[in-house]
């Protein structure tokens, strides 16, 4: 026994010593003492070793979300997956339009204005911005757009080949700054392929690609783009990519719209573990990073110059356009029954659920879009009365109204009990915790299940209508910090408490399993994300189209719930026939779609996606935090480029 205890105690002592030693150096800069090895340099001193050849005071370092680049020498982002968040989509490229979910705006990039559709949605005209040049100095014109689309149609190896081949009859440029698409069939959302919402169809430089024999195998290295930065260097092993501000940055839409980007160099660095990210940030070698909840708490606790998106509780980015929750495989019984799905929802105590998942930091949403700026006014507030009146039939003439507008207040009480300072201001509570969710009603859930033939055994465990024990396997990604994992784990606890044999099955293979329909319940988002700006819910509702449903075992085209209904098909059809810029009509149809989703509940919306951003203000300030959300806050989204002109160097 002593032989085992001794090493463990030694280890604990050693780690305690390391941790306590580690706290000191991170906070000393303010005291005027330079921690040993800290890359703290005055403008006059040469670049520190840790940054190789780059001057730290002119360099912004951000963590790369998707990790080490597997194709470091390949910048042909039109083929396969090329780790485009290494700076390609943020700094090198300008899309035609970008979504900025923080401001709710669509930003014109290479486009000069909105797309103009013909009445039958078979023709769309796009005006292009003048004065833009590629990073090698060649002017950007409509010929580049025409060439891009024609090339994508010509070669099957491009990701967007199928889309353009099936949609575009003809593309042409009546002049240098106008491009016209004639479509094979009506498509009122055709232009969204060029709308950057964490990716889009980017434009190829014609003068480079037209000289290439096989554009699918072409590595496009060095790459040429219309964004404000150009490639400086990259790690052949894939751990970092460095971008340098273009001398002619004013020829990029970013420069034209917002002025000169401040960092001369921007580095995207990949880390293989979160501990290394935190250590890098505490030593001022990493300016912006997405962490887990636990990682953010550690970074804020130890770094004096660190800050989160919100300066106080709940700290997190809570205006992300994505709704998280639970998805049922509605192609498999008993999850093909909406009353069973509703019973499982009512067996959830959302306060306990969210406390377990994210310590009460996220904003609840009772519908299949998040409680995000534009969606609150378009959908969440207008649906309040309908939600309050929404009624479930429990059988025997008994009914139940499940909506609970007090759920956010209960969540706020939980947060207070954790010691966080929560104002009683209803506006704050709505913004931080949402406008409502559903009641915790296990008794009602029981009635719904009994109505559908379920029963409890002698130990109180639920049995299926055929008498077999009810076992729910909830699959999710295996990454414990991911909200899919956290939702799945929280749901399992709630359902266990309710008497169901629920188990959580984390898997690295979750994408294949869910897309092939080989699962019961998953932590997948219960609906596709909306664009993040504007009222159009086509992107949320269209994946529920019955035309996309495939048998189990085949990759689904639509949502992994495999749910559809003729009623929803009709909503989608009408949305397709509506001009996306006609807000009133789009919202009216969107509301119909959301009500159907609430009634049918193919997946349970729980809370909006929350991001755990940690910014180090040692070298750079004026980050777009909650007090000044001039743009979206992530460095992995495309509009990061529009943040760069506003960042301020500290002069250290």
């Amino acid at each position: 026994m002593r032989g085992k205890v001794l090493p463990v105690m030694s280890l604990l002592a050693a780690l305690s010593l390391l941790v306590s030693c580690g706290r000191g150096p991170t906070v000393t800069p303010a005291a005027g003492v330079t921690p040993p090895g800290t890359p703290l340099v005055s403008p006059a001193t040469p670049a520190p070793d840790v940054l190789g050849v780059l001057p730290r005071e002119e360099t912004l370092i951000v963590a790369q979300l998707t990790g080490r680049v597997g194709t470091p020498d390949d910048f042909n982002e039109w083929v396969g997956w090329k780790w485009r968040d290494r700076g390609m989509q943020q700094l090198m490229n300008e899309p035609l339009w970008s979504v900025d979910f923080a401001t709710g705006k669509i930003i014109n990039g290479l486009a000069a204005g909105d797309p103009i559709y013909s009445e039958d949605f078979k023709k769309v005209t796009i005006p292009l911005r003048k004065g833009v040049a590629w990073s090698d100095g060649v002017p950007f014109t409509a010929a580049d757009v025409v060439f891009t689309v024609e090339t994508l149609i010509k070669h099957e190896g491009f990701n967007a080949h199928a889309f353009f081949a099936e949609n575009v009859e003809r593309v042409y440029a009546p002049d240098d700054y106008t491009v016209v698409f004639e479509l094979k069939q009506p498509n009122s959302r055709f232009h969204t392929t060029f709308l950057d919402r964490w990716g889009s169809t980017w434009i190829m430089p014609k003068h480079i690609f037209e000289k290439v024999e096989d554009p699918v195998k072409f590595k496009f290295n060095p790459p040429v783009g219309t964004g404000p930065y150009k490639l400086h260097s990259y790690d052949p092993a894939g751990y970092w990519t460095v971008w340098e501000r273009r001398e002619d940055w004013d020829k990029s839409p970013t420069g034209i719209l917002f002025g000169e980007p401040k960092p001369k160099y921007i580095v995207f660095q990949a880390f293989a573990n979160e501990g290394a990210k935190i250590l890098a940030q505490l030593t001022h070698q990493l300016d912006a990073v997405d962490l887990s909840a636990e990682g953010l708490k550690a970074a804020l606790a130890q770094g004096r110059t660190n800050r989160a998106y919100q300066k106080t509780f709940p700290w997190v980015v809570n205006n992300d356009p994505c709704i998280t929750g639970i998805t049922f495989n509605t192609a498999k019984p008993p999850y093909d029954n909406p009353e069973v799905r509703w019973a499982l929802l009512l067996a959830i105590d959302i306060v306990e659920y969210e406390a377990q998942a994210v310590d009460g930091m996220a904003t609840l949403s009772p519908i299949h879009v998040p409680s995000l700026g534009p969606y609150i006014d378009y959908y969440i507030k207008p649906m309040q009365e309908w939600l309050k009146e929404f009624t479930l039939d429990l059988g025997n003439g008994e009914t139940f109204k499940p909506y609970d507008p007090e759920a956010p207040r209960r969540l706020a009480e939980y947060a207070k009990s954790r010691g966080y300072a929560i104002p009683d201001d209803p506006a704050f509570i709505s913004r931080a915790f949402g406008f409502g969710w559903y009641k915790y009603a296990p008794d009602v859930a029981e009635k719904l299940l009994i109505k559908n033939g379920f029963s409890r055994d002698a130990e109180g465990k639920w049995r299926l209508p055929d008498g077999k024990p009810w076992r729910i396997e909830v699959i999710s990604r295996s990454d414990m910090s991911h909200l899919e994992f956290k939702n799945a784990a929280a749901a399992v606890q709630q359902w266990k408490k309710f008497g169901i044999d629920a188990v959580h099955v984390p898997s690295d293979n979750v994408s294949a399993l869910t897309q092939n329909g080989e699962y019961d319940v998953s932590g997948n988002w219960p609906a596709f994300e909306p664009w993040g700006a504007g009222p159009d819910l086509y992107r949320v509702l269209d994946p529920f189209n019955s035309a996309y449903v495939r048998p189990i075992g085949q990759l689904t085209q639509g949502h992994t719930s495999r749910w559809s209904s003729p009623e929803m098909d009709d909503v989608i059809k009408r949305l397709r026939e509506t001009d996306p810029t006609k807000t009133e009509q789009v919202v009216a149809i969107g509301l119909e779609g959301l009500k159907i989703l609430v009634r049918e509940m193919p997946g349970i919306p729980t809370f909006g996606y929350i991001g755990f951003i940690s910014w180090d203000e040692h070298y750079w300030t004026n980050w777009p935090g909650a007090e000044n959300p001039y743009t979206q806050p992530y460095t992995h989204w495309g509009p990061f480029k529009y943040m760069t002109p506003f960042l301020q160097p500290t002069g250290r």
Partner: protein
Amino acid sequence: MVFLRRYLIPRLIQYVLVIVFGVTVVFLIPRLAPTDPIASTIAQIRSQGSYLDPATVDQFIEDLTELYGLRGSLWEQYIALWMRLLRGDLGVSFFQFPTPVIVLIGRALPWTVGLLLTTTVLGWLIGNILGGLAGYFSRHKWSQALDILAMLIRPLPYYILALALLLLLGYVVRWFPIAGGTSIGMRPSWTWTFIWDVLRHSFLPALSLVILGGTLWFQTMKLVVQNVNAEDFVQYAKLGGVEEGKIVFRYVIRNALLPQVTGLGLALGQIFSGALITEIVFSYPGLGMLLYNAVITGDYNLIMGITLFSIVAITTAILIIDLVYPLFDPRVRYR
């Protein structure tokens, strides 16, 4: 001639059969797993909410099936694999399409071989020398101190040891970088600056591997030496007045080295599987992460490429050990 017929040829046949069997197993296992390379590619393209028009997904799946060479029955794919392998073509990576597998392996291999070859040999040398001496002089205080140190280090999970080194030498005293294979902005070149940069980045991963590997060799060697030391022929040599240095190196350590040489051969063969945890802790490039990502994304060609290297390396190591063993152990030669 007898050596050829009875010893060499059976081993060469066994060598080829093991490789064929290994390739077949590696071909089958990923295909039997539920991992789907096309689903992984689509999921990654759709990551973070990127849009892929649902109406065109079917056609996209068709295109990817064609591009990845996944058409045809399992048997047809198996035959096509051997045709490719015999031409020296490992195919292209699905997930890092269209990068050839050989390029990906070639990119990661120098990091893995450089790190693991050095640390395996260093750990083996240090561990065996110290273990041999500590085993023979086991009553000395320095020997007992080394033994206690090894007992303290050995039970540590590698991850904790590596993390402790990272915290201590990378964060607290900040002598070494905390992540990566090179500094940011450093361009590869045969210059002293670049080599020094690579060595600095490799130091912590190497130290962690040498400490743990060396401790293992130390403990096994010490035990073997203690056993050999108790053998009659050693006692006889001592009683016969043979010089102690001669007893230590010619009688004891030479005999004790036999299983250690076998172990070294196998350890060298396993280098080609990479060192996943080392790569994760130190964000160090190498084959481990490449193989891990290939497995979780169902990148059949890449899995095949890396494991082929590993199978060939290990079977070759075993073959070489078999062939050179008679040089170390006369008993094998006499048989």
